[in-house]
Every structure is written in C-alpha cells, then in structure tokens.
C-alpha cells in the first residue's frame, strides 16, 4: 500500500490514521490530498502575504514592498512545488512536509503583520515597522550590520574562551586540591555571585581600552558558572573510579587528566552553557555602554535615530548568532559526550 510511505512523514497522528485506513481507490486520492493539505495551505498563506503587499498602497515610503511581494510568491510556488513532488524529493521533501505547519504559521503571521502596519497602520509607526522596512535594512545597511555582527563575535569569542579556560582550570584545581579550595573558594563565594555588569563602570575606567574591559567582563560572566560546575563535577566523581585507576598503577596526573576531567565533563558543559547565556547579556550591555562597535552598539545607535526597523533587524541577527553559538556548543558536547545515554537535544 503506497500510503504507508506517505504516512511515515505525516506530521500529525490524525493524518497517519487516515492514511492507513484509506486503502482503496477514491479514498486513496482523498488521503493523498489530505497529506498535501498542510503544504497547500502554507503555500496559500505565502501567496496571501504577497498579495497583501500589492493589493493596498503603502501608508509610508518603503521601496522594498514589491520585492518582498515577489519573494513571497517565489516562496509560495516553492512550497507548492515541493509538496506535489514530495515523494520524488526524498528526505528534503519529507522535511518540508513536516515543517509545512510552521510555513503556514509564518505566512499567516507575515500577512497579518503587513496588513496591520504598512497597509492600515493599526499598529503605531514607527514602533512597529512593516516587514519590507526590515528587509530594507538588510539590503541597504548591510555593511554596517555586518561590521557590527563581526565586532560582537570577536569580542564575545575572546572573552568567552578566556573565561571558559580560566574557569575550567580554576574548577579543576579547587575540585582536586584542598589547598587551592581553601584559598579560592571564599574568593569565589564573595565575587562570583556579583553580576559581571556591576563591574562595568569600574572596568571602563581601570582598563586601558573599552575592548579589554569588555573582554574581562565577558570572561568574568563566563568564568563563574564554568568554575562552579567544573568544581562540583570534579568533586562528585565516584571514589570507586580513583580506586580502580590506582590499583592499575595510575599516577596523580593520570587521575586528574584521565579520570577526574572526563568524568566531570557533563557538569563542565552545563557550566559552559550557563556561562554562554550570561556572557551574551554582558556583551550587549558592554556594547551599549562603552564599546563603539557591535550589535549592542548598533541597537543603541538605531534607538538614537528612532529607526526601529534597524533595531528589529539587529535583534534578529543577534538572536541567530546567540542561537547558533548554543547550537555549536551542543554539537561539541554531543560529540564529546557520545558515551552518555540520552543527552538533551537542542
């Protein structure tokens, strides 16, 4: 029964049932149509978005309206094409089919956004710019946006890696050595919980450049959770592992490098994840307060000109970068912790 192959990619339980039940003749066509339904409706939603761009005149001056409309038509045609040729396209077709409800929601949302902003102005301008004005930012202000994103990435990477490395080494030291714990633990308890942003005014005065000050703050924000979780990871390693390694002739360096650290790695990655989150916050604040570059600065600058479209555009880029960084971290973790059962997928 050919419907079985289609039912495997059906997104909802209901579709799956009908696909299995509908065995013969006319019912089969009906079930095929049903499976394509979400794709067809998604295509219609994007068509509606394109039409809504052209159907009414803009209430403002936005040169990209037509281009956005034609792009929407291309997307609509693309979804329709993939939906009809789904079986021939294999994995890609199945992927699009599975995401059809999301395409539908996105198309509907864009249509609503277009109509309520650019066409009838139900949402007040300039706080709610239409989609085409955000597209315009990406086409016309790309160099500045790109430079800002690059500056942010550079600052973030430097601070994050320094913080992660120092935090990891500190965590291993205090987890392993009683003497290191005696001296570092109280300092950690005193300084660690302080939000890194609280250092901002002091850091900008004491460091030679705003860039080095920001790197320090990002490293601080990253370092604290990484230290604490590495430490707790090393401290919670079962003594049975050490006993086994010692009876097999392991020296202290082997116990640290080949037993304590690999066993603590799951904790370390929780720390790296938390550190990434708090370092994003510090990055943006630092860029808004002192660094004259980066997406945080771009946001601040756009606010100064009341160009809300630029702010939304920058927010979208920022979100993609942060999400991408977390995805990358999780990929590294999945690679290193492949021995763990059932790690959370991001």
């Amino acid at each position: 029964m050919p419907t079985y192959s289609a039912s495997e990619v059906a997104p909802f339980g209901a579709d799956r049932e009908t696909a299995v039940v509908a065995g013969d003749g006319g019912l089969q066509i009906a079930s095929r149509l049903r499976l394509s339904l979400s794709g067809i409706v998604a295509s219609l939603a994007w068509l509606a978005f394109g039409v809504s761009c052209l159907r009414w005149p803009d209430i403002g001056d936005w040169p990209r309206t037509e281009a956005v409309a034609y792009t929407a038509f291309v997307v609509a045609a693309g979804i329709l094409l993939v939906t009809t040729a789904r079986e021939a396209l294999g994995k890609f077709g199945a992927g699009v089919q599975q995401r059809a409800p999301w395409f539908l929601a996105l198309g509907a949302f864009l249509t609503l956004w277009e109509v309520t902003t650019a066409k009838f102005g139900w949402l007040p301008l300039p706080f709610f710019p239409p989609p085409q004005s955000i597209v315009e930012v990406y086409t016309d202000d790309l160099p500045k946006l790109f430079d800002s994103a690059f500056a942010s990435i550079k600052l973030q990477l430097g601070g994050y890696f320094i913080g992660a490395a120092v935090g990891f080494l500190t965590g291993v030291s205090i987890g392993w050595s009683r003497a290191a714990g005696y001296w570092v633990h109280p300092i950690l308890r005193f300084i660690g919980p302080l939000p890194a942003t609280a250092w901002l005014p002091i850091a900008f005065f004491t460091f030679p450049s705003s860039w080095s000050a920001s790197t320090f703050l990002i490293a601080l924000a990253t370092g604290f959770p990484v230290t604490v979780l590495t430490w707790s990871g090393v401290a919670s390693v079962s003594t049975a592992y050490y006993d086994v390694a010692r009876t097999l002739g392991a020296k202290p360096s082997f116990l640290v490098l080949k037993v304590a650290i690999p066993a603590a790695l799951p904790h370390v990655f929780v720390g790296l994840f938390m550190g990434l989150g708090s370092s994003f916050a510090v990055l943006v604040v630092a860029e808004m307060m002192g660094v004259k570059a980066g997406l945080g600065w771009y946001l601040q600058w756009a606010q100064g000109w009341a160009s809300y479209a630029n702010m939304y555009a920058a927010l979208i880029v920022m979100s993609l970068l942060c999400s991408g960084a977390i995805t990358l971290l999780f990929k590294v973790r999945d690679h290193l912790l492949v021995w763990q059962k059932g790690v959370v997928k991001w």
Partner: protein
Amino acid sequence: MVATALAEQASFIAAGASLDIDHVSHAFDIDGKALPVLDDVSITVAPGEFVALLGPSGCGKSTLLRLVAGLEPPRSGSLREDGVAITGPFPSRVVVFQDPTLFPWRKVWDNVALGLEAQGILKTQRHRVDAALELVGLSSFRNAYPHQLSGGMAQRVALARALVNDPKILVLDEPLGKLDSLTRITMQAELVSLWQRTGVTALLVTHDVEEALFLANRVIVFSDRPAKITADIAVDRPYPRHRGDAHLAELRRQILGLLGLDATW
C-alpha cells in the same frame, strides 16, 4: 572458548605471588570514634592458591581486600607480597570490584587498556589488550560503550581489565555478587578456568558459601565485626568440581554452622 584463547596467549602465564597478612588490625574513624573492623588477622597464602574469605555482611572482609590492594595502610600489622611489604597500590595486585566500575566515557577496548596506559606501556603492548578481550570472549564488543553491555559482560570487561596487567595476586571483591544466578554459574566456571591457566594467586570475598566451595582451595571464615578468623578450612577436591559433591555438601553444612545459620539446613 576461554581455554583455547588462553592456550594461544602465553603472556598470561605468570606464576602467582605469595601473600602474608601478618597480625593486621584496622579501624575506621566514625564521628571521632574508632570503629574496629579487623582484629588481629593473620593469613598466609601460598603462590597460586585460591583463598575465599567468607563472613557476615559488613564484617570487614572488603576492608581487608583494600589493605591487600594497598588502597589503605593498616592501623597495625603488616602485609607482604612475595616477602616485600605492601605500601601502596601496584598493578601486580589488581582488584575486581563488585560493581564493574568501567569508565563510561571509554569504549570497552580503552577500558581494558587502562592499566597499560596508566603505566605508560600501552604503545608497545596493544596486543595484550586484544588478547585479554579475547580471553573473556568480548572481542566483538571492543568498540561498545559500557552502557551498552549487560551486567555479566561488564563484569567480564572488568576481569579483562585486571588480567591484562599480568597480576600476581587477583583480588576479587564479590565480583559475581550482582549477577543473575545463571550468569553467575557460568562465570564461576570461567573464573576457575582462568585461575588454573594463569597460575595467579586469588583472594575472593564472597557471601555465597557454595561459590566459595566451588572455587577455592581454602575457605577462611570470619566472625562478625571486628572480623576475626574463626575457621580456616581446606577444600581438598579436584577441579572441575561438581555442585552436588557430597564432601562439599558436608563442608557447606559445617561452614553454615560456623556462621550460625545451620538451623536452616
């Protein structure tokens, strides 16, 4: 399978060492008070002998094994391997624990290689890891992670991890205690076979009287904590032994009597 693998692998044939446990007493500190666990224990184990230590749960048998392994120094008395005082852990005395305690982040092969790697001789001795895996019949699982193994398989890997070091004294801390009864019976036969072919000295802690009688040349019975030796019984039967052996049944009755459990028989 094990026998043929061993016959091919001459490197495992190493004579066992003698072990002298000389007036050893030990205690734990609990809330500042000393809790005695071993009371003047003296045992002499000849090279290649298989000695089982039996006693009530928590009597201090496992502590004695930790002292033999060198993981802790005794409070008083001394332990000697081939006449040389035991001052710390050494790969000639390896322990197989009740839990396999395989390192979950290492594949089976890398777990078995642990001892050679820790001693810094893995590069030239990789074939010993392959041979040890073959010895326990798990060559095809070399690339598996520990969480993919059954309890019996994990314990076999732990055994291979011990044997790869060519130990002179094999310290077995209830290694079969957590296995199901069928796997346990198979593993008991394999342990006998391994011990016979390697000539290693074996020291086994167990709760299972039948297991002790099936495996050991000598069964040493301990009292409740602090552990004192109450009997040292020679099991003078040839291998392979049979569980229904009348002499073993008689010994079992006698040992259960020493442990105060004869009423159930």
